[in-house]
């Protein structure tokens, strides 16, 4: 297995976790969610994090994205060390440098699609880059539905709004938490396609947590987590390859 294909990575690191640990509870009830995880997310790369339930894949994403605190180690987004930041600075960092896509879409029902897309800039008090925003909107194919409210859109369309929202502020990195979890396979494929295109064509960095091998196959690289540790990595994954790898873990899990 080629676990360190460093030669391939000439680009800079967008986010990096070093010896990252996350422990819940104390003493007997202590649960180690992340156990000294070290991982780099490179600029212009689409990374998928996979693993069985309880493997710590969501926790890893939350810690790296500045949504959750961690017990040990360090996390950097660009040049910023997250461990030393107060809530206010963390909020600002998320606002300015990170984009999010959630499983449950999480759009504001009172705002139109357009307003939802530019919400992060509104919050930051920045004027959106109109050209860029319309490019993003064109890419996700929402041009005709900008004045619709979320309730008037299908699930797939809502998630496309969420993707556009994440892209619109040109963040350094986008995190997706099971972005296709609530979608049917066709809508899911569309959303994943947009994410891949944003990486390929716009040079965006995307990190996505998923349990779906097909979704993972859209990524450039898949990281496998189990029991809070990175157990494997796969470059240029295919759905079948990922599925096989997952089955191996399952078998191991059963025999061990």
């Amino acid at each position, binding site marked *: 297995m080629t676990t360190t294909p460093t030669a391939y990575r000439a680009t800079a690191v967008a986010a990096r976790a070093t010896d990252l640990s996350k422990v819940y509870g104390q003493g007997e009830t202590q649960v180690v969610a992340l156990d000294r995880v070290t991982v780099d997310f490179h600029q212009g790369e689409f990374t998928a994090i996979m693993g069985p339930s309880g493997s710590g894949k969501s926790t890893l994403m939350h810690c790296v994205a500045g949504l959750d605190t961690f017990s040990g180690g360090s996390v950097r987004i660009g040049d910023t060390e997250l461990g030393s930041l107060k*809530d*206010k600075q963390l909020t*600002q960092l998320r606002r300015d440098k990170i984009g*999010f896509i*959630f499983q449950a879409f*999480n759009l*504001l029902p*009172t705002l139109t699609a357009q307003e939802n897309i530019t919400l992060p800039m*509104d*919050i930051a008090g920045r004027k959106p880059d109109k050209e860029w925003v319309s490019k993003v909107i064109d890419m996700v194919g929402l041009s005709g539905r900008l004045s619709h409210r979320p309730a008037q859109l299908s699930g797939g369309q809502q998630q496309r709004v969420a993707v556009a929202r994440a892209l619109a502020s040109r963040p350094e990195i986008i995190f997706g938490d099971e972005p296709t979890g609530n979608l049917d396979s066709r809508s899911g494929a569309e959303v994943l396609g947009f994410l891949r295109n944003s990486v390929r064509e716009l040079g965006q960095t995307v990190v996505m947590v998923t349990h779906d091998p097909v979704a993972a196959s859209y990524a450039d690289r898949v990281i496998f987590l189990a029991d809070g540790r990175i157990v494997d990595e796969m470059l240029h994954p295919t759905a079948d390859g990922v599925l096989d790898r997952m089955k191996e873990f399952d078998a191991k899990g059963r025999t061990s």
Partner: protein
Amino acid sequence: MFRTALRNVLAHKARLLMTVLAVMLGVAFVSGTLVFTDTLSSAFRNQSAKSYDDVAVAVTTYADQNDAQQAGLSQKTLDRIAGLDGVASVTGRVDGFAGVAGPDGKLIGAGWSNKGSNFSPGKGGKDTAYDFVQGTGPVRDDQIALDKDTAAEGGYQVGERVRVATNGPVKEYTLAGVFTTDDGAVNAGGSLVLFDTPVAQALYLQPGYFTNLTVTAAPGADDDRILAAVQPLVPESATAQTGAALADEQAKAIEEGLSGLNQMLLGFAGIALFVGVFLISNTFTMLVAQRTKELALMRAVGASRKQITRSVLAEAGVVGLVASVVGFALGIGLAAGLRSGMAAFGMKVPEGALVIGTTPLIAALGVGVLITMLAAWLPGRRAARIPPVAAMSSVHAIATTKSLVVRNSIGAVITAVGAALIVVGASTGSDGRWTIAGGAFLALIGVIVLIPLLSRPVIALVRPLMVRAFGVSGKLAAQNAVRNPRRTGATASALAIGLTLVTGLSVLGVTVGAALDKMTTDQIKADYMVVMASGGDLDRSALTALEKAPGATAVSPQQAASFEIDGEWVSASAITPGDVERVLNVEVVDGSLASLGEGRMAVAEKTAGKQGWKVGDTLPVTFSDEKKGRLTLGAVYKDTEFLSPVLVDTKVVAPHEVKPFIPQIFVKMDGGETAANEKALVSALGDNPAISVMDKQDIRDEFGGMINMLLNIMYGLLAMALIIAVLGVVNTLAMSVFERQQEIGMLRAIGLDRRRVKRMVRLEAVVISVFGAVVGIGLGSFLGWAIGQTIKSSLPGYALVIPWDRIGIFLLLAALVGVLAAMWPARSAARLNMLNAIKAE
């Protein structure tokens, strides 16, 4: 089903908290009021029973120095009663006004409660009604005794000289003793001066006469038998009663006196409960909405609609019961607080334990439980309409817009009818008041029904402003506020109701106050008005004294008289000709006021017109002492508030009256209103503490004072509505924050900081409260205008005044309500656990 209801209550403890608080406040007010008035009336009743304990029979008259027909009860009558079988003793009383000057020369006490009476020692030299703590009773004509509190307030010791004013000139007496008494008026904070009996008789009636007699029975004698024996001995104009009957009568009078207070306080409670209904209804609507799936499941497994409604009602019943019990306990505390509060304001209440009857308890529980269940009835019905299939679908049933259409149509019709009635009432003049009241009630209900509809355009109007001022928080807040129009409406209603009442009354009060102010400044040319502090009439000596005061250029009394002209009773003002037009604004229509004098009169325009009297007519007159005469009409003048319809020279009525009745005297001074002039008048009156010299500002305050007091009571009402409104806004926001956890979590994740999350919630609260306030202020101003139209004709110089300053304060208060109410919900929104919130369902 009842068990599910109980479980639901327990499960939603926190969310029912505001409902419980609202019901509790209302119930506390109801039970507090009832317990308080029960306690008060029982205390007064005990006291009056005690003070009539020894009285077998009491004889009372309305004898008055001014009234020649009623002489009172003579010493001879007293002696004859004393000789009756079974009578142990008879005490004669004669009383009237007596003001005590403090060391600063000012009156001690409030004027209307300053009494003077006679010291009437029995066989042992003691007067059983008074217990002397110092010195003895007055037995010489230059001696007096004072009640303990008054003596203490004036700092007077036995042997010192005290200045006492009765209706005549002020006199100095030596303080012979200090006493305590059961007398109700004294215990309620009044003052009492005791004179030697002949002195009191000379001051208040005539030598040898009394106003009242109290008879005590010998041991074993029957009160009724004594009464029967007394009855033939007293004049017809006197009333003889047994002590027991008198005590009963007084108790009844006390009860009637308290019923006004009772009704006012219950009015407050009513407002609180009415406003509370919206809050309760809101809470249950939200609880039902949150439980849609659960309720649908119950329907799916076989619960009937009735059962669902009943379970919601049972839940409300439990909440109402708990809140009522706590509210009742709180009410008892409130009653105790009110009683000590009264003492703090100088109103003395007789001692006695709190009286907690069963009526307040039943009223409290009944009102609390019924109001809560009534308010939960509609949400309960709505719950029953949830289809069983809702259990399967993943989305919450959203309030349909269809029902809002029905609601809006009904609301529009009611509001239109109400507004039309108000306009019709306003245009019909003074008879339109009831039409307006009916219209106001309908309009208020209609607006409450319409409030959800109104919320959208009104808030859309302020939205751009909020976006400019507060950016994204402002924008989100404005949108959140209209997200659930029903909920916003019900929340805003609380403030709208309170502010409708208060704004209406403010507009009216300020307008009437301004008109009265204009009237006094327009009509009164005098610099000073002289009156008795007691509200009684001035002695003639005061008039003579003022006429001699240095600097007085015009002095005219406002002597009230009445006589028959041409067989028609008229009330007249007896004045000083020549001076009257210099102290009052009298507009002469025909003839000349200079003609006034012996055998002459002037008549007001309306009366003259009605009777067909003209200048030059000589009319037959019958005076109050039945003597006949003739008066020639010399002038016709425009009607004014300050003069009766007939004017005569004081000399015309003087021969026909025992004592002139002079309620006030107007004085114009050389140099106008100055401190020196005021001092000159006061000293001309012999530094009499019982006489007030009022300048123009005092006169204005006298007329405007009532209005201000009334307004202040109404502002108390606003405070109550504000408290409930705060609870309502807290409730709504807490629910909203709870429902929008996921959204707030997302906003935090994509970069909205805690401060701005808080601001968003706070702004939503402010928008809702200010919206309610704006609706209330609008409706209130409209009502104020309408009622003003009906009193326009009876108030010269009426012009609508919109009190912008007060309205500004109301709006600020409403905004403050929003900020205060948002404190807790905003904090919990900002502290929300982001990761839990954004997790998919």
